[in-house]
């Protein structure tokens, strides 16, 4: 077997593993006070380096290693780069929380766990075989459960971790069951060999749904979403933002590539399945979001409905859809991380306030944060000229051009509902009076950097058309 491709096609994974090892060793040996202080900046810089290395369009040709277990396409570089950038921003926002007395001693664990999940996602994206894919998925899930329960002495966090791991186990079990059916009916688990042996028999349909439910769980699509709200609410806010953006983006991309590449023969079936799931996800999530008072819970439902919109790109199954999916994930990352950055920093500086009512009158005391939140919400709601408008536009266009007119119409109706609840938050911050709002504070430098980056993304990514064109150039050959 030829292993020469390891250092080219797997270079971003290797760099990531190196960073994990560095974090591990640093955590063990650099115990001095000054060294601890330098830990956070160091990790941020390393993470930025990982993002750059991942995003660098090299090698420019696709290839495979380990006999096809692991594959590389140029488009993977973009997706990995976006995920790494998202993780980088999450790291930037994590400092205040990690400096807290009860978490300071586990700072290193946080970095290692976060980066391990990212590594899992990288493997998931690069998988060329169902087993590889499953290992990647688990590598992304198990450390995630630890992250969710990171504040383990806080009741909420522990409960969220338990719920997450139980649901994840259930989903993984079903998925593995489904994969075993494929092995039974097709005799192989290589993505490249499977398409010829997919016949669309009832057993394979069942297997496909089981497989889908596993990813549907990660993306939190209805009806596999029930863990989302409890976990999002209970997990530390930084973890929640990571969960809602990076983990979701990776799973959505993988779902699309596998459905399109491995199951073209069952396109009719998975399209019908997605149709139902999209309508349910967008509508049910919106219905629940309206009723939420806790902002983290609120964003849990918001992220479920956003996942539904992302599935509009998957259902199209075209290169155009792939471009719009990546573009959507990118912009959703910027907007959602901006929103969570605000939530997290407000929570840290106000002694844990995360209710919508706590945000009443935020504009008076912290106008900049209120404006950032508003811009992020406008982008999530798809109000022009913010980037979210363009990403929604492309994703609707992708589904529309494949003939899903009614579906797009339903999605459009739902954007009206979503506007309503996004604006509820804006109303709370700007209009609703409050006798004692969150007092004015100045957030730490790395959070400020992260917010500026996110807002720049929210404003510029849509207007600078070369971003979309750049993505498009890579996905064209899908």
């Amino acid at each position, binding site marked *: 077997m030829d292993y020469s491709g390891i250092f080219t096609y797997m270079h971003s994974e290797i760099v990531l593993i190196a960073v994990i090892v560095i974090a591990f060793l640093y955590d063990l040996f650099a115990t001095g006070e000054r060294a601890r202080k330098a830990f956070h900046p160091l990790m941020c810089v390393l993470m930025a380096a990982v993002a750059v290395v991942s995003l660098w369009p090299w090698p420019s040709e696709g290839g495979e290693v380990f006999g096809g277990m692991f594959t590389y396409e140029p488009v993977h570089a973009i997706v990995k780069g976006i995920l790494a950038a998202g993780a980088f921003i999450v790291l930037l926002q994590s400092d205040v929380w990690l400096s807290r007395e009860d978490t300071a001693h586990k700072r290193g664990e946080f970095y290692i766990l976060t980066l391990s999940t990212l590594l899992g996602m990288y493997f998931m994206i690069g998988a060329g075989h169902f087993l590889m894919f499953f290992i990647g998925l688990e590598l992304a899930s198990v450390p995630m459960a630890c992250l969710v329960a990171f504040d383990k002495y806080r009741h909420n966090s522990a409960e969220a971790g*338990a*719920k997450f791991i*139980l*649901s994840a186990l*259930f*989903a993984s079990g*079903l998925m593995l069951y489904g994969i075993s059916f494929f092995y039974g009916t097709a005799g192989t688990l290589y993505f490249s060999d499977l398409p010829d042996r997919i016949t669309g028999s*009832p057993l394979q*349909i*069942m297997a496909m*749904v*089981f497989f*889908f*439910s596993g990813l549907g*769980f990660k993306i939190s699509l*209805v*009806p*596999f979403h*029930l*863990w989302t*709200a*409890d976990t999002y609410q209970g997990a530390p806010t930084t973890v929640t933002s990571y969960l809602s953006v990076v983990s979701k983006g990776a799973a959505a991309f993988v779902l699309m590539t596998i459905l399109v590449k491995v199951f073209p023969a069952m396109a009719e*079936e998975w399209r*019908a*399945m997605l149709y*139902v*799931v999209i309508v349910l996800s967008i509508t*049910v999530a*919106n*219905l*629940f979001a*309206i*009723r939420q008072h806790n902002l983290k819970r609120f964003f849990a439902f918001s992220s479920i409905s956003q996942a539904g919109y992302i599935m509009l790109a998957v259902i199209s199954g075209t290169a155009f859809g792939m471009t719009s999916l990546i573009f959507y994930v990118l912009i959703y990352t910027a907007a959602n991380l901006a929103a969570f950055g605000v939530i997290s920093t407000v929570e840290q500086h106000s002694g844990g306030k995360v209710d919508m009512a706590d945000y009443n009158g935020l504009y008076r005391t912290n106008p900049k944060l209120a404006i950032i939140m508003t811009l992020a919400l406008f982008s999530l709601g798809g109000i022009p000229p913010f980037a979210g408008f363009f990403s929604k536009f492309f994703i609707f266009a992708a589904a529309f051009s494949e003939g899903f007119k009614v579906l797009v119409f339903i999605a459009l*109706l739902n954007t*009206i*509902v979503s506007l*309503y609840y996004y604006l509820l938050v804006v109303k709370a911050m700007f209009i609703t009076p409050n006798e004692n709002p969150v007092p004015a504070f100045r957030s730490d430098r790395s959070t400020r950097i992260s917010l500026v980056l996110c807002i720049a993304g929210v404003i510029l990514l849509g207007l600078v*058309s070369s971003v979309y*064109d750049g993505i498009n150039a890579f996905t064209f050959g899908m």
Partner: protein
Amino acid sequence: MDFTYTVLILLLPFLSFILIGLLGTKLKPVTAGIIGTVVTGIAAALSYYTAFGYFGAGRDASGVYPTMIPWNTVWLPFSETLHIDLGVMLDPISVMMLVVISTVSLMVHIYSFGYMKGERGFQRYYAFLSLFTMSMMGLVVATNIFQMYLFWELVGVSSYLLIGFYYTKKEAVAASKKAFIVTRFADLGFLVGILFYGFYTGTFSFTPDAPALGAAKAILPIALGLMFVGGAGKSAMFPLHIWLPDAMEGPTPVSALIHAATMVVAGVYLVARMFPLFVEYAPDVLHLTAYVGAFTALYAAVVACVQSDIKRVLAFSTISQIGFMIVALGVCTSSDPHAGGLGYMASMFHLFTHAMFKALLFLCAGCIIHAVHSNEVSAMGGLRKYLPVTHATFLVACLAIAGIWPLSGFFSKDEIITACFEFSPFIGVTMTFIAGLTAFYMFRLYYGIFWGRENKALHAEHVPHEAPATMTVPLVFLAVVTLFAGWIPFGHFVSSDGQAYTIHINTTVAIVSLCVAAAGIALATWMYMREDRKVADGLATRFSGLHKAAYHRFYIDEIYQFITHRIIFACISSPIAWFDRHVVDGFMNGMAWVTEKTSWAIRYMQSGSVQRYCIWFLGGVLGLVILLLLI
């Protein structure tokens, strides 16, 4: 020669806008003014350098100045051919326009130091001037029709901001809104025209290739006609002219820059830009514009004869002169200047000379208003002793616009009238008559301001005095340009087919129009030079009906008022508002109600117990499997 630097001509004013706009009142007023002026000065220097380099580089093998695109970026691609670009295009007319805009803009920047001194919002004023300069430059160097449209709108915005500069003044606010709405309304036509054009030819380029044009042959007249509607709005052609007189509420230097020299000729520029297509594919539309232009010129000239506000006279004069330019383009029957294409050159030439002397007139008006604190001619009179420089330069400009040899207006107007006679004697005679009217009303204004009875009551309060040097230097500069611009061999630079064209004066036309202009001036002298104006007053009473109608601009504004308020608001808007309030809102409220109820009903799904979640999960999976097996 490398012209990549031309992008700086756009970029510098833009940066100055951002800088002054962002820093705002943190800057000292003088600093803001200096930034704006220096940047415009650099832009002007670059424009001259560009013109020098471009025309100096010479013609290509086929004898035309090559069209160059020194800088371009694809901004929004829709397909292989259909994309929106942002870039800089240099060809004879865009280079000519760069020179005009930067010159007038620079003069206005300098002049405003004196005129706007001590005004609140001085910094804001200079920021907007920079924005305008950038937009106007972007408009003329546009590489494609869509970029032109974008900058066209930006120009409209800056015009809106500057007309409404005195935002505490009710009239100024109303005028800015009126200008914006009327031109926006016209721009709708422009946009639809562009979309037709883009859809049928498959490109936004000004020069589509032959197959694309062949495919769009049938639609081109409509597309070009719609584009002309946009041009007519910006260039204040009848009946879309109503905004321009009101726009005089803005500061006078702004009127000089935007509403006399540059923005209002954008419509003319648009037609000139699309001229090859007009001539080739839509000659009838082109000739229609000639009639629109001629009627506008006549109408505005008549109205200008009886206005009493100095700036309004100049505004109507501007409308009338733009009418001349449009007529000159409209009478072209081919792109050969020797056989029916003379008007193109004449129009551009007049655009150039008019920009200079009309800006001069407005700046003079600014000095006069500065001296007497009133716009009404009745408050002036006998000012020639007090404002010698203004008087001399105003006289130069009046003679130029009246078309007296050897000032610049004579040459360009003569070419226009020659072109008109080539097309049809009727239009030729009409335009000659309007030229006479022009001479008459300009000198009526001149005598009213500088001769006649002094306003003793006002002089008792304070003696009018000449404006400071920052204001008079631009006057003198523009007057010098006006004196000599006619001798520029304009046809060598700009002509309809790009070949060098030597201007030769048609002696018959020249003598006739000189006589007519002299007659107009003589009549004005006889009627208005003396202190008592028996003849003028007598005529006004004799034809009181006509006088009143003309004074009220033939009630065009009132007609608009009637149509918008009585017909559109009452018969269309009110029912729509009712429908919106009761049916659309009702539907939305219903939707909200249903959403709320459903949301309440399904809340038990999120029970919080993991076992339940797994049941839902499994149920969902099995449900999907069954669904897929059934279909």
